[in-house]
């Protein structure tokens, strides 16, 4: 009996159920939380502004690598003009949202988890309950919303910087004609592609923020427990982002 209850699929199902319930709790409290916008703004700053440097730096390098890779591949077919197309589509549709989400999980997600976990282990959450204040509403929801709002903004920044980086290599260094580079890009990219990136970054924003606050709120209130929860945040949200990315990419390809 115990073996069945503790078997992997059952544990996984229970976890999914518990995360879903927690998500429902958060959604139910979003309305009341909007009454204190100051808390949310603070969390957008924590999750967003503090991840900005790492996101921009990574975006630059990813864009530059795409420039090199595109030039290498298309040169073999004598069609270097298409470097911009690869960089634009690759960034907008996949790399921008996915890499930003992974960086976001490592930078902002872990800090959310450890912060909430620490508040739990020092009895701050219990103290709030004793003061008749709902910790989900006061602590969890603003952090979730902050992450949810910051993530698409970060993904947009990443994509923008990456496009600049690709252009820097393709045009400035490898000598692709500026006019050809941008006109090919303009022809190839449709609004549908932009939407794909936007939708993905919104979904990833929900996924990473939810996992981060869930793990923090449900961590064991001990130093080991908080450490483990932080690790789980990175592992679970990274895998979740990559899985969702595949599903969304497939779905957008169908609706094209």
């Amino acid at each position: 009996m115990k073996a069945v209850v503790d078997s992997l699929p059952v544990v996984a199902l229970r976890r999914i159920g518990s995360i879903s319930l927690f998500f429902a709790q958060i959604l139910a409290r979003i309305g009341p939380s909007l009454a204190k916008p100051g808390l949310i703004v603070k969390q957008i700053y924590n999750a967003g502004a503090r991840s900005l440097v790492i996101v921009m730096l990574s975006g630059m390098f990813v864009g530059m690598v795409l420039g090199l890779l595109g030039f290498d591949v298309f040169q073999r077919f004598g069609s270097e003009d298409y470097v911009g197309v690869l960089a634009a589509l690759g960034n907008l549709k996949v790399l921008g949202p996915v890499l930003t989400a992974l960086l976001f999980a490592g930078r902002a997600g872990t800090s959310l988890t450890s912060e909430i976990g620490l508040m739990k282990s020092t009895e701050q959450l219990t103290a709030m309950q004793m003061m008749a204040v709902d910790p989900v509403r006061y602590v969890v929801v603003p952090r979730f919303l902050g992450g949810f709002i910051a993530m698409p903004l970060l993904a947009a920044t990443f994509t923008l910087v990456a496009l600049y980086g690709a252009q820097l290599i393709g045009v400035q260094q490898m000598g692709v004609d500026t006019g050809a580079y941008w006109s090919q890009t303009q022809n190839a990219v449709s609004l549908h592609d932009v939407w794909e990136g936007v939708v993905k970054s919104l979904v990833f924003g929900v996924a990473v923020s939810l996992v981060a606050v869930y793990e923090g709120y449900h961590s064991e209130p001990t130093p080991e427990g908080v450490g483990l929860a932080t690790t789980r945040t990175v592992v679970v949200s990274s895998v979740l982002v990559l899985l969702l990315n595949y599903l969304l990419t497939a779905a957008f390809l169908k609706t094209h």
Partner: protein
Amino acid sequence: MTTTFCYPSPPYKPVDMSRLSEAPAPVKSPAQAGDAVIEVRDVRYAIGGRPIFDGLDITARRGRITAFMGPSGTGKTTLLRLITGQSHAESGSVKVFGREVSSMSSAELFALRRRMGMLFQNGALLTDLDVYENVAFPLRAHTKLPEPLVRQLVLTKLHAVGLRGAATLMPAELSGGMARRVALARAIVMDPEILIYDEPFVGLDPISMGVICRLIKQMNEALGITSIVVSHDVQELASIADDSFLLSGGKVVASGTPEELARSTLPEVKQFMTGLADGPVAFHYPAKDYQSDLLDDAGEAP
């Protein structure tokens, strides 16, 4: 009797607590004093199959300081969780202000908790707010008082615990004793009727301990707050408690005034009150026979 750190009567100049709020007259009003505020009857509770309480009976009376004492692991903190409705007993009844806690809806529970203040072991101050905002937190959450009034309330409570000058410090900058005093100011800012102290003396130096002791007595006398103190510091408790309950093995093994407990001849009580290493609470963790354990030549670790 050995030295106590608490002096219930003079050498200090009492803060004028009557100015703290317009709350009902700060006296143990004769009509109400002595009413049972918290009644725990025949409570059974187990964690993971291990029984914590096995028929627990406790009464805390209005306007008095009631102490729950007992060795570590006897469920003193669990008892507080039952009283505050964070956990529910398997059987028996826990009544606060005459109402059964386990049958309250969460809205009723929140309403009940607004009439209670709780001081946590390490203060549990919110780390991202400074001292002033920590004390103001319950006011901001539950009232729409204008800022000047909030300021007045917060500063008077901070003044009462002697930390008005520390209002702008962050919790990380406070010593353990100061953090607990700030938490005390926060606990009384809503003028609670019951104040619960969870291990208020743990890890404090003698001076801080004396200060906390004095404050507990002061809060009780000046504001007429019913106080519950959970601790195993016998001497401190003896100097401030009106009633005390000694918990052991899931039951109350003795109750009465601290003096009565000190005179008790029951072995459990004697062991606890005088701090003997061996007695009804055994020094040795249960093990097999010593001699056969030593002579066990199987050569394996037990």
